[in-house]
């Protein structure tokens, strides 16, 4: 008997199962199971959540079942399945024996928010290392026990046995007596990808059977005993103040519990959900007017006039001023990209309860660890007294309203001293989720006499701030502590270009404010930059009578993976240059456009050719087809990656052609799916795609990169079809008609 404390399983399987289901105990008892002489000394000790410890990420129980504690969460992208694959592969256990716990601040390490296409690239790779470290420790322990050299042992379905001979020992037996309390070893040997049987092969997603039969529990389905229902009543004008509330106006609502007012935070709580909805609609309140938003028609003047607080130079090579001054020919253009909403099909929802001075909150937040800090700040509590638990919600493509619903629920739970569920209504989501900020980009290029690009200069205008946290609506309205900095996401990460022009400067002007509370939406800033960069490159190609494919290849010089993507794309799309002229007389015109990205200039490569059809009479663009080639390094679940590619393209066609948040001087006015339409079935494009699998390379992100280049591919295809440049997203029919007439 070794006298090491055995951290076999900090949370029992039964307790873990409770987390994903309907039955929930508020104060989850976390018991350390000790063996040997400590066996009776089970005590309430927190589970290890250190990201440098194997037991932070992994537990193996006596039956050999593996539990993964993942800080990254599945936002509907298939991350749970991919992480299961990674662990099953590295530990050599069947996928069915691996269970994933996600985004629970009490149980999972903080691996950062689930954004930026980093779940596998960072989160999965970290967990893989934990599994590799565990695998080696288990092998060494087995070697010791079986008195056989570890080199002579193999692992099959969680059973370690010699290559020759009968002796064997199961993981469950080993960890029953030996700790997983190991430091993550960055040198732990990883399995040779050549021997993979699970990773790199399409695996059916684990969540789909339950999702198509109504058995899955989404955040919106989650219920807690004694729970009541809240609905928020937001100011009709965003910055308006609450002048008076007539609580009697809802006294006849059945099951009415309370009208809650704190400064400008107003909400109702009722026993039933419908009661809360009825009360929120019926409640009489007087608000002051407020007209602090800019004129929608003059949004770009407004952005350009906004005070710049800082300039970020994201790349600088050579001397653009001299090169532009000396140029034979200069080209310039301005691109803009409208405000977008996330548009999750299920509005945000959360459940919260205060118990014994501690706050527990269930949320579909993509960043429960950050949410915990934000709620702790809001309620002036220590972080340790707040527990935020992830439950899958409706898809989120960035920071939508989930965290805000959590803050609403927590505030109401404090007011009525019982568990409260807050479900946002559609207008709450469209009106109050944080928005992708309006973005303006000025492009300039100098061309030399041989048709080459001698200078490239871009100036990006977007709000100041970084990623991580977005101030909580409830905290702000209620006058409770909250962050003040804007959190638009890492919007400048795509401003630099992969092309090796002799003189390059890319500059981001960071603005002191932006009209609506900003946050990150799928490929934040990078989509806007890729739109300007890749469409402007197409403008250069046209101005220099160069094939856009050749122009890209010429300036990607020695980047072999980039060139491989482009060449495969040219084959897949049967790329050839066409002229718009031969279609001049037809009422519809067809064109093709190419776009490419090396995401953030350091990872996933995607090339794309869009085929569009334009109706010259109506100005309506139909995106008919996309050919896509992607190199994201090692592919974990090929079908999962393809699902993401399809989703990225279809969603971004919608954003590019149709989407624009509307507002007047006081409020967002596009509060439903009629005023903020999105792409529907009759208008979806066909997609052909090819993945370049590089099993020996790092797995890179796939949730964003292909989305980034859809707007440019469409704009370039429109130019190919009708010879006009669309530089303003969305490409609405009025803009198309205006461009055709110009």
């Amino acid at each position, binding site marked *: 008997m070794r006298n090491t404390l055995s951290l076999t399983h900090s949370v029992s399987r039964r307790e873990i199962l409770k987390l994903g289901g309907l039955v929930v105990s508020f104060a989850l008892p976390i018991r350390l199971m000790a063996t040997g002489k400590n066996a009776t000394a089970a005590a309430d000790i927190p589970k290890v959540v250190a990201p440098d410890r194997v037991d932070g990420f992994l537990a193996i129980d006596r039956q050999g079942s593996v539990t993964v504690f993942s800080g990254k969460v599945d936002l509907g992208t298939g991350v749970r399945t991919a992480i299961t694959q990674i662990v099953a592969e590295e530990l050599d256990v069947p996928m069915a024996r691996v269970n994933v716990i996600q985004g629970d601040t009490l149980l999972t390490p903080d691996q950062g928010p689930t954004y930026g296409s980093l779940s596998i690239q960072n989160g999965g790779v970290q967990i893989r290392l934990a599994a590799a470290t565990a695998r080696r420790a288990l092998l060494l322990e087995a070697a010791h026990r079986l008195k056989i050299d570890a080199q002579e042992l193999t692992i099959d379905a969680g059973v370690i046995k010699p290559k020759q001979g009968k002796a064997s020992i199961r993981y469950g037996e080993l960890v029953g007596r030996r700790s997983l309390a190991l430091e993550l070893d960055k040198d732990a040997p990883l399995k040779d990808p050549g021997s993979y049987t699970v990773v790199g092969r399409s695996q059916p997603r684990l969540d*789909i059977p339950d999702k198509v039969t109504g*058995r899955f529990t989404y955040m919106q389905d989650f219920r807690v005993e004694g729970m009541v229902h809240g609905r928020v009543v937001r100011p009709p004008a965003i910055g308006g103040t609450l002048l008076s509330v007539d609580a009697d106006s809802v006294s006849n609502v059945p099951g009415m519990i309370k009208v809650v007012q704190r400064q400008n935070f107003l909400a109702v709580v009722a026993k039933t959900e419908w009661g809360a909805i009825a009360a929120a609609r019926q409640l009489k309140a007087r608000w002051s007017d407020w007209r602090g938003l800019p004129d929608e028609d003059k949004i770009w003047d407004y952005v350009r006039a906004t005070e710049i607080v800082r300039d970020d130079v994201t790349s600088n090579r050579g001397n653009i001023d001299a090169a532009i001054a000396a140029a034979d020919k200069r080209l310039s253009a301005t691109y803009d990209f409208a405000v977008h909403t996330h548009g999750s099909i299920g509005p945000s929802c959360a459940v919260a309860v205060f118990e014994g001075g501690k706050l527990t909150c269930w949320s579909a937040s993509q960043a429960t660890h950050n949410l915990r800090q934000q709620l702790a700040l809001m309620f002036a509590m220590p972080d340790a007294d707040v527990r935020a638990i992830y439950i899958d919600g*409706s898809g989120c493509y960035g920071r939508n309203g989930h965290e805000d619903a959590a803050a609403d629920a927590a505030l109401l739970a404090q007011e009525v001293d019982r568990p409260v569920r807050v479900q946002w209504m559609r207008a709450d989501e469209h009106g109050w989720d944080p928005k992708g900020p309006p973005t303006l980009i000025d492009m300039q290029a100098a061309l030399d006499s041989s048709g080459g690009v001698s200078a490239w200069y871009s100036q990006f205008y977007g709000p100041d701030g970084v990623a991580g946290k977005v101030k909580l609506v409830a905290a702000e309205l209620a006058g409770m502590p909250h962050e003040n900095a804007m959190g638009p996401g890492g919007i400048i990460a795509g401003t630099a270009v992969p092309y090796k022009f002799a003189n390059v400067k890319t500059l981001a002007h960071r603005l002191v404010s932006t009209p609506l509370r900003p946050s990150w939406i799928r490929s934040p800033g990078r989509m806007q930059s890729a739109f300007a960069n890749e469409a402007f490159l197409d403008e250069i190609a046209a101005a220099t009578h160069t094939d856009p494919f050749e122009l890209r290849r010429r300036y990607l010089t020695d980047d072999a993976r980039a060139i491989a993507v482009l060449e495969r794309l040219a084959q897949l799309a049967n790329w050839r240059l066409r002229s718009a002229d031969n279609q001049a007389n037809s009422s519809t015109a067809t064109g093709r456009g190419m776009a490419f990205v090396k995401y953030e200039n350091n990872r996933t490569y995607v090339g794309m050719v869009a085929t569009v059809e334009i109706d010259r009479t109506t100005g309506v663009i139909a995106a008919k087809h996309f050919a896509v080639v992607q190199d994201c390094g090692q592919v974990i679940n090929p079908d999962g990656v393809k699902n993401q590619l399809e989703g990225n393209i279809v969603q971004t066609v919608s954003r590019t052609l149709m989407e624009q948040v509307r507002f007047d001087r006081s409020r967002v006015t596009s509060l439903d799916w009629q005023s903020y339409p999105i792409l529907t079935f009759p208008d979806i494009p066909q997609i052909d795609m090819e993945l370049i699998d590089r099993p020996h390379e790092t797995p890179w992100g796939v949730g964003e990169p292909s989305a980034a280049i859809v707007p440019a591919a469409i704009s370039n295809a429109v130019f190919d079809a009708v010879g006009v440049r669309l530089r303003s997203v969305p490409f609405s029919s009025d803009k198309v008609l205006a461009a055709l007439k110009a």
Partner: protein
Amino acid sequence: MTSQSITLDVNGKTARLTIDDPTMPLLYALRNDLGLHGPRFGCGLGQCGACTVHLDGNAIRSCVFPAVSAVGHRIVTLEGLGTPEQPHPLQRAFIDEQAVQCGYCINGMIMQAAASMSSNRNPTDAQIKQALAYNLCRCGTHLRIVRAVKRAYGTA
């Protein structure tokens, strides 16, 4: 408002429940009184389709359909169509085509398709797209959804 007791026929079973507001949509009875997860709240406006259920075999938007109006009719939800163990052919096809991302809209896709295709075996892509033209998906799973519906009904 006075409360009233009503009886609903849901997934072949009789359910009695008390409602205190005759305008309450069916969705809330199904989700909160009967604990069903299939029909989902998306917009409350009949615009997105996430709440779709069958009423006597027809697809309706339960978020705008009063619960009291469902009395005397046969209601079927996603749960009544099939289970993970014994899925309906459409549910099977959605699994086979992996036609889900977040899956929040999928209830509507399956329930709408099941109702629309009941009279149209071997539908074309265009017919499927038209049948689902008023069901919204934000993740962009449309291509897979069309393939799944086609797989379920294409050879029937």
